[in-house]
C-alpha cells in the first residue's frame, strides 16, 4: 500500500491564480481531511469528508473548496490564491472506528 499520496510536492503561485492539490489514499478509508500548517505550528483543519459525496467545513475553509466523488480521492481547490495561503498542506485519512489519522507527505505552497 502506498498510503496517502499528495501531488505536487512543491508549487509557487502568483496572486490570483488557481490550482488543485491532489490527495489519494489506497487504504479504503472513509474519512479524509485537509489541513494547513504554518511554520513551527500545529495543523488547522480546512475541510473534511466522512465518505464519498459528503464534505464539511473545518476551522479555516475560506478561500478553499473540496469535492469527494470517490472513496480514494479528495482534491483541494484554491480559486484565487492569496499570500495568506502560503503554507504546507497535509491530507490525511482515517478508518471509521479507529482513532489514527494517516498523513501524506505534504504540499509546500508559496503564493507571491
Amino acid at each position: 500500500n502506498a498510503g496517502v499520496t499528495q501531488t505536487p510536492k512543491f508549487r509557487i503561485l502568483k496572486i490570483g491564480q488557481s490550482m488543485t492539490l491532489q490527495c489519494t489514499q489506497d487504504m479504503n478509508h472513509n474519512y479524509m481531511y485537509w489541513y494547513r500548517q504554518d511554520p513551527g505550528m500545529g495543523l488547522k483543519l480546512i475541510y473534511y469528508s466522512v465518505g464519498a459525496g459528503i464534505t464539511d467545513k473545518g476551522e479555516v475553509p475560506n478561500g478553499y473548496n473540496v469535492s469527494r466523488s470517490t472513496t480514494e480521492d479528495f482534491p483541494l481547490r484554491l480559486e484565487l490564491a492569496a499570500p495568506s495561503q502560503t503554507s504546507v498542506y497535509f491530507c490525511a485519512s482515517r478508518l471509521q472506528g479507529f482513532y489514527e489519522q494517516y498523513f501524506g507527505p505534504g504540499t509546500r505552497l508559496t503564493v507571491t
Partner: protein
Amino acid sequence: TQLLEQSPQFLSIQEGENLTVYCNSSSVFSSLQWYRQEPGEGPVLLVTVVTGGEVKKLKRLTFQFGDARKDSSLHITAAQPGDTGLYLCAGAAGGGNKLTFGTGTQLKVEL
C-alpha cells in the same frame, strides 16, 4: 472553538536529560492523541489515550491523560537525538470526526 495550548513551545536539551511536554485545554475531549513530525514529513501517531487518568508507556515515552480529560502530558526519559522533532497533541470531541491540534512543541536533543 476548542483550543489546545502546548508548553513549552521550544525545548533544547542534551542527550540523556528528561523532559515533559504539556497539552492543556478548557474543553473536554473524548480522546487525545500525540503525534511526532519530522521536517518535510507528515505527523505520525505515537499514542491515543481515551480514559481520564490513563497512563500509557511506549519505551522511554510516558503519556498521561488528565482525570477531567482536558489535559495531557508527554514525558521522555533519557532523551536521544532521534527524539528530535515537532510534538503535537490533538484532541477529539464528541463523535471524534475532527481533531483539534495543539500549537506544537519543537524538541531538539543534542549530543
